[in-house]
């Protein structure tokens, strides 16, 4: 096979365990940097107290190898696999599953997934039951983005199929109203992922993917960068603050991702992540 590149599955296995080891006990450094900035200028004693606890927690968790949140989350993976990438001595899905399971045991992470959603809701004890999104891309490399997504913030997602007459101000309003409405439940200050465009399911995926963008980055398109900034400013002007207690920052960053959509449609999806924002990526 011309252009084919073969990589041993052990390499992928080890990289996943290392990635998991980096994030379960330490939130995104960019989040911590933003929290430090907010803490330094915070004047409300309760909000300041909570922001200090967030910073202290990050240090305790890393020093003592403890999960920074007891909800060690659903492992969510975005995988971009080059069409010439091949794994040797193991298939890619089994390798991911077994690496995550090994990491789950090694780092003493919580079993948080149930077998089925409605009747017994029995906790799955033998695998972390990841959610994996695959994309085939040109080339011979592999890019893995791993996130640990807590349930509390995930529950506070929203999805709308809006009329095409919706304007920028109304989009801002929709997101701000939603984030304000869910208050302290998703563990603010949050990261806000917005998916605009695509269709029913792809807008939701865009919102999730938006969360994993480098925290606080600006959209490459100036119009959308401005939209992100407007949403962030409004959320912090009108939101309910740290843990919904009425003071301090409600959001740390807003990331918008867009996709082409049907002439009849304007899908909007909102996905939130808590300040214990745990994600990393690696390539092979």
């Amino acid at each position: 096979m011309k252009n084919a590149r073969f990589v041993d599955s052990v390499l992928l296995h080890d990289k996943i365990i290392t990635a998991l080891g980096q994030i379960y006990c330490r939130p995104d450094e960019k989040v911590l940097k933003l929290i430090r900035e907010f803490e330094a200028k915070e004047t409300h004693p309760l909000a300041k107290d909570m922001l200090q606890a967030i910073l202290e927690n990050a240090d305790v968790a890393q020093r003592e190898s403890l999960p920074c949140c007891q909800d060690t989350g659903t492992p969510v993976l975005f995988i971009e696999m080059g069409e010439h990438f091949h794994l040797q001595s193991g298939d890619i899905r089994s390798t991911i599953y077994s690496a995550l399971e090994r990491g789950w045991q090694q780092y003493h992470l919580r079993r948080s997934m149930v077998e089925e959603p409605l009747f017994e809701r029995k906790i799955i004890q033998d695998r972390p039951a990841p959610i994996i999104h695959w994309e085939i891309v040109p080339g011979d490399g592999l890019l893995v983005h791993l996130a640990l997504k807590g349930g509390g913030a995930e529950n506070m997602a929203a999805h709308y199929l809006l009329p095409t007459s919706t304007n920028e101000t109304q989009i801002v309003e929709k997101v701000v109203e939603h984030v304000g409405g869910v208050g302290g439940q998703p563990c603010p200050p949050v990261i806000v992922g917005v998916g605009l465009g695509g269709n029913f399911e792809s807008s939701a995926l865009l919102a999730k993917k938006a969360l994993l963008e480098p925290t606080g980055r600006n959209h490459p398109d100036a119009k959308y960068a401005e939209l992100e900034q407007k949403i962030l400013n409004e959320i912090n002007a009108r939101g309910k603050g740290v843990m919904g207690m009425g003071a301090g920052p409600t959001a740390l960053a807003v990331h918008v991702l867009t996709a082409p959509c049907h002439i009849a449609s304007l899908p909007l999806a909102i996905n939130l992540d808590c300040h214990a924002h745990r994600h990393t990526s690696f390539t092979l």
Partner: protein
Amino acid sequence: MKTHKLTLPLNSETILSLSPGDKVLLSGTLYTARDKAHRRLVELIQQNKPLPFTLSETAIFYCGPSPIPPGKVCGAIGPTTSSRMDAYTPTLLEHGLKVMIGKGERSYSVQAAIKQHQALYLVATGGVAAYLSKHVTKFELFLWPELGAEAIYKMEVVDFPCYVSN
């Protein structure tokens, strides 16, 4: 911000002396219970069976801890979203529950029930579970091990930091 050092159990008089936004450093014995344990506790009440602990003498902490790493007292300990327990809370309040610890807002009807029973809803900071675990001095599985993180765990806490809900 007013700070109160309190030891469980809490009576109505103490509870009524607190104001929204006050910090509470809580000590004493409390029990974890989240979604599934709540369902089971309410089922016990509906079947007129005895409850596994006296609700009025402790606090319920909405928490599903992470496993205990070797050599530690407990794993990561932190609050889960309280609103999921709203469906069960009025029944537990009627049966003596005085103190709840969780995160996020409660429904209006639960807020009213809390007031009516002179009970207390405390918010703990979410996502700081390693930090909070340092305030736990004793920790044991108490009931329903098959529920894993959703089982009831009994723990002793010292100066556990939380805040009176708005």
